[in-house]
């Protein structure tokens, strides 16, 4: 069982989606996350173990390498693709309550900002870390964040901004969330941000990379 889950973790880490996928070249023809997830479940490994000891481990490794500049966006995207291939088999178990997320993470790019690449990468890594992700998209108003928070008790919120001009809307969003649902944790990120800025606007956490956001959530 351990060997199979480790193989699965490697598939996610390397972005090996399925046997037919030519990527990465050195794993050509081998089973990918798709086949191995199915095999693990067929062998009777608990869905929570397939997630936590296989898929999540692989995504964690690639996320860590990404934050160390050892791999780049394309590697993360391929890993997320492999992760999704495995998650497809787990979906029915989540729905039946036989597999469990760590919690709900609501993410969006703040009002006035249309950039979604950074936000999507964070969503992928957090989902790959075993969280249920609710992605509100780009140009999300403070009100829309608050509405999503009210629908997901105990959730954590992530705010993204790429522009110095839209960072101000982060402050408004944090304020409204804290006012309407005190105790809700908010983590922020984006190229122009700093930890000092995050603290100044009342956010609970800041991360320069997706893995840092996941670490914040997992604490």
């Amino acid at each position, binding site marked *: 069982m351990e060997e199979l889950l480790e193989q699965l973790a490697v598939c996610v880490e390397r972005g090996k989606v399925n046997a037919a996928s030519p990527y990465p070249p050195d794993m050509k023809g081998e089973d990918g996350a798709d086949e191995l997830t199915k095999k693990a479940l067929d062998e009777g490994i608990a869905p929570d173990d397939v997630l936590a000891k296989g898929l999540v481990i692989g995504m964690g490794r690639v996320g860590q390498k990404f934050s160390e*500049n050892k*791999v*780049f*966006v*394309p*590697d993360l*995207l*391929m890993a997320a693709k492999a992760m999704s291939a495995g998650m497809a088999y787990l979906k029915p178990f989540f729905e039946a309550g036989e597999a469990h997320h760590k919690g709900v993470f609501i993410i969006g790019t703040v*009002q*006035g*900002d*249309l*950039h*979604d*690449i950074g936000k999507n990468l964070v969503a992928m890594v957090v989902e790959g870390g075993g969280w249920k992700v609710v992605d509100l998209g*780009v*140009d999300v108003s403070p009100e829309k964040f608050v509405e999503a928070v009210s629908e997901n008790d105990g959730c954590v919120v992530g705010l993204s901004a790429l*522009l*110095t*001009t*839209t*960072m*101000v*809307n982060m402050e408004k969003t944090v304020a409204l969330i804290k006012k309407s649902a005190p105790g809700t944790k908010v983590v922020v990120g984006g190229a*122009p941000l700093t930890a000092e*800025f995050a603290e100044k606007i009342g956010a609970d956490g800041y991360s320069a990379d997706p893995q840092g956001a996941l670490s914040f959530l997992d604490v």
Partner: protein
Amino acid sequence: MGRATKGNHMISILDALAKKGVLVSDGAWGTFLAAKGLAVGECPELWNIEHPDDVADVARAYAEAGSDLVSTNSFGGSRFKLDHFGLGERVGELNETAAALTRTAVGPDVHVTASVGPTGKILMMGDVTEEQLYDAFREQIVALERGGADACVIETMTAIDEAVTAIRAAKENTSLEVICTFTYDKIGEDMYRTMMGVSPADMAAAVLDAGADVIGSNCGQGLEGMVEIAAQLHAAAPGTPIMVQANAGLPTRVDGVDTFPETPEDMAARVPALIEAGAGIVGGCCGTTPAHIAAIAKAARETTA
């Protein structure tokens, strides 16, 4: 509006470079327009129609500061970007007007370099096809040429496949000279990569193969790292002119206002090293102003004198 076109006797950027040694491009547009009142969440390219005088002012200010190349207010003018504002059907109009505004403002003898930014789509994600991307770039760049541009600058790129698609769209459908610049982050001592993991050497090989006439780097973390990036590009493509457009450092927020740390003097002081490293066209990106460009132009003249 009356359309000015490029001078009949205008020489190419490559010829101008061969003649003058170093050329100066322009500085920031986004931060300049924001200072003129462009609001957060507003479509910058719509200003070509709704605030043409302000847009023309930016172009004129750079030409007066000494820019040999002035760009157009069309960075986000692709269908994919304009769709966010419900303006996807106005690609032709918004881009043609962008080029015409700059051309009219700078006159026939300054190069109008049509700005083309990334679409925000990642090809390997499969959210768009290469053909859709090509069509979007073609539509935008053809309109920019129609408006009076004589070159296009495909800028702030991070992915080889997207940049190459844009270059092909320009080369196969217009007679514009093509400049292509990538944005790099420093990831270690003298090591630079785009967020997609592309090194200056990888980029140079791929975009030259696609037909770019000038290669370079823009945006990023200030002029300091640009000297090393220019050197790496020059080493990878010794015969190719290199353009560098740096930010005035990374912005810090002071009392709710973005402040860029590098002064015109700071940036001008690095110009000799940039030229030494191989840069042939020097200008600015976010946070740079006509004052920065004037200082850079003066430093460039003194370096090549």
